[in-house]
């Protein structure tokens, strides 16, 4: 094994590789392409992964939505098909009865599900938009970006039923000139003056979009004459609780309070992100797995190509090998040389592929920037994945190099030197 560290060995190999340029290039392309694909695929998958994660990060993943529907079973003398209306009483009851709850935020909306939208007027312009009545806690559950200078609804707004509103970025763009200050401005919503306290931009998909108006819950109640009714509620379970279990507990409590049959699954509708996150995670890990499989398969294909080309060249170099052996090369030296050629080629090819892959990822990253349109964020490859990949192709190169090396040694010098 000593010969590996000798300069002469490498000069001999360098000579052989350099003097057989076309074969070297063809050989290298396979593995370069393989590693390139491997790196790019892995990077893209990572980028997608990062992007999904950053979206969910703003969203409490152990969050559920809950709304009233219609009963599907008769119970306690009530007919089936009875509409369920959630109220603030339910919210308060749940808060005190279900200890799993971290946040509970009742919400009201108009402009959704058949209710009329709010009329928004500023100066001579007007438009119809969805209007939400919300508690500040909603911002803990479903994060929004509030532009500089503004704020979201706070407890004081709720307490004093302040006529303040937070408007969406799109509304701002429609009603305000560029650079014009919206904060502190007064607008009319359904004929009542409101002060704009913030402009938001959603950071993930939701009901709100970027063209909704947020009012303090209490203000909404009064203006739209909701009494204690609510449209739905958003509940976040404590960090150590499983949202699926919490959902069951909450539904059981609600069924009891509303005289609903315990087995009636239709009375209350709900949706939780726990399941969604699990699905996305499953999807992402599935994709990662596919990436690895495709990447590794490509790598193997590349390495096999190297072995193939080396095998052919061994045939071409039969005479050379015969000469070398006549001149005193031992079988071990011949085997070592062919194998080192294989390893060297795979390694260099791998390195080139890695560099190109990284350049492409870097290019993709700078082309996308922080754009929200492309679901790819910071596409990088794990350092260990790359080192692992390089190590494994060197290993594969060694193994595959064994075949031509053995072939080279198996040719007797006398056969190699036989005149045609």
């Amino acid at each position, binding site marked *: 094994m000593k010969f590996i560290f000798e300069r002469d060995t490498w000069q*001999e190999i360098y*000579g052989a590789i350099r003097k057989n340029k076309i074969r070297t290039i063809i050989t290298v392309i396979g593995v370069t392409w393989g590693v390139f694909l491997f790196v790019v695929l892995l990077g893209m998958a990572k980028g997608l992964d990062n992007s999904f994660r950053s979206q969910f990060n703003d969203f409490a993943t152990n969050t559920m939505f809950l709304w009233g529907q219609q009963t599907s079973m008769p119970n306690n003398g009530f007919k089936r098909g009875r509409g369920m209306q959630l109220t603030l009483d339910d919210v308060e009851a749940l808060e005190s009865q279900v200890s799993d709850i971290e946040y509970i935020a009742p919400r009201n909306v108009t402009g959704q599900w058949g209710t009329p939208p709010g009329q928004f007027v500023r100066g001579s312009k007007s438009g119809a938009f969805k209007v939400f009545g919300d508690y500040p806690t909603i911002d803990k559950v479903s994060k929004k970006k509030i532009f500089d200078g503004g704020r979201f609804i706070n407890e004081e707004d709720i307490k004093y039923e302040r006529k303040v509103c937070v408007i969406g970025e799109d509304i701002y763009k429609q009603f305000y000139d560029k650079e014009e200050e919206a904060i502190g401005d007064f607008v009319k919503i359904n004929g009542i003056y409101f002060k704009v306290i913030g402009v938001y931009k959603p950071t993930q998909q939701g009901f709100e979009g970027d063209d909704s108006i947020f009012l303090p819950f209490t203000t909404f109640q009064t203006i739209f004459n909701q009494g204690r009714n609510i449209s739905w509620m958003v509940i976040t379970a404590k960090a150590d609780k499983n949202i699926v279990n919490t959902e069951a507990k909450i539904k059981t409590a609600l069924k009891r309070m509303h005289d609903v049959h315990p087995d009636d699954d239709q009375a209350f509708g709900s949706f939780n992100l726990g399941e969604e996150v699990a699905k996305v995670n499953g999807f992402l890990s599935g994709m990662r797995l596919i990436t690895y499989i495709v990447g590794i398969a490509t790598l193997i294909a590349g390495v096999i190509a190297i072995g193939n080309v080396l095998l052919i060249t061994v045939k071409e170099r039969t005479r*050379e090998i015969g000469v*070398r052996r006549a001149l*005193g090369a*031992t079988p071990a030296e011949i085997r070592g040389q062919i194998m080192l050629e294989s390893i060297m080629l795979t390694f260099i090819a791998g390195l080139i592929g890695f560099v190109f892959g990284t350049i492409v990822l870097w290019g993709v990253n700078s082309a996308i920037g922080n754009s929200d349109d492309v679901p790819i964020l910071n596409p990088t490859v794990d350092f260990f994945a790359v080192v692992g990949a390089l190590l494994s192709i060197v290993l594969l190169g060694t193994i595959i190099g064994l075949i031509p090396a053995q072939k080279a*040694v198996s040719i007797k010098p006398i056969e190699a030197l036989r005149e045609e």
Partner: protein
Amino acid sequence: MIEIKDLHKSYQMGSNSLHVLKGINFSVKEGELVAIMGSSGSGKSTLLNILGMLDEADTGSYFLDQVPIKGLNETKAAQYRNKFLGFVFQSFNLINYKSALENVALPLYYQRKKRKERTEKAMEYLGKVSLAEWATHLPSELSGGQKQRVAIARALAADPKVLLADEPTGALDSKTSYEVMDIIQGINDEGKTILVVTHEEDIANMCKRIVHLKDGVIVEDKAVEQVRASQYV
């Protein structure tokens, strides 16, 4: 230098066995220049291959410089070849992507000589065959005679005990052949033992002894008056 006793060799050709060497007894002393002659199929190349440790005899003994050559594994054979023997082939067998100098230095590489020493030695032997100024040229840039001279320099580079030349002039015209033989004679004059396989009478006559092979046996072994190649050059 070479001692061969009752050497037999047969090749298996499908179901037929081809008895190529049928009991060769033959010895070569140091400093001899021996031509091995014979028509094709006479067994002369087989004999040379056995002498060159590229092939092994079935029975019989072979001593090279008092070392028994028997049952060598490939590694040992390679080391012996490197130490004892220099080869010159009909088709030169230079490595086409190596320069003349690198080709000559190759046996020294397998002797694990240092690079500097290799280059110096190789240069020295290239000078011996008057090709010093062609050192950096690739074989494809050399004429046939030049290639064979490079091959001879390479065969000599490791300073072998015996030089084995298999039809060294087979691929050359007469004039170039004589040039090559002139060099071979010159080397022999310096004391190197040389065996030349040839089927050309004039080439054989440039040696000091001719061994005639026919159907696997030596039919004639005679000393000859050496014809100097230099007079034709």
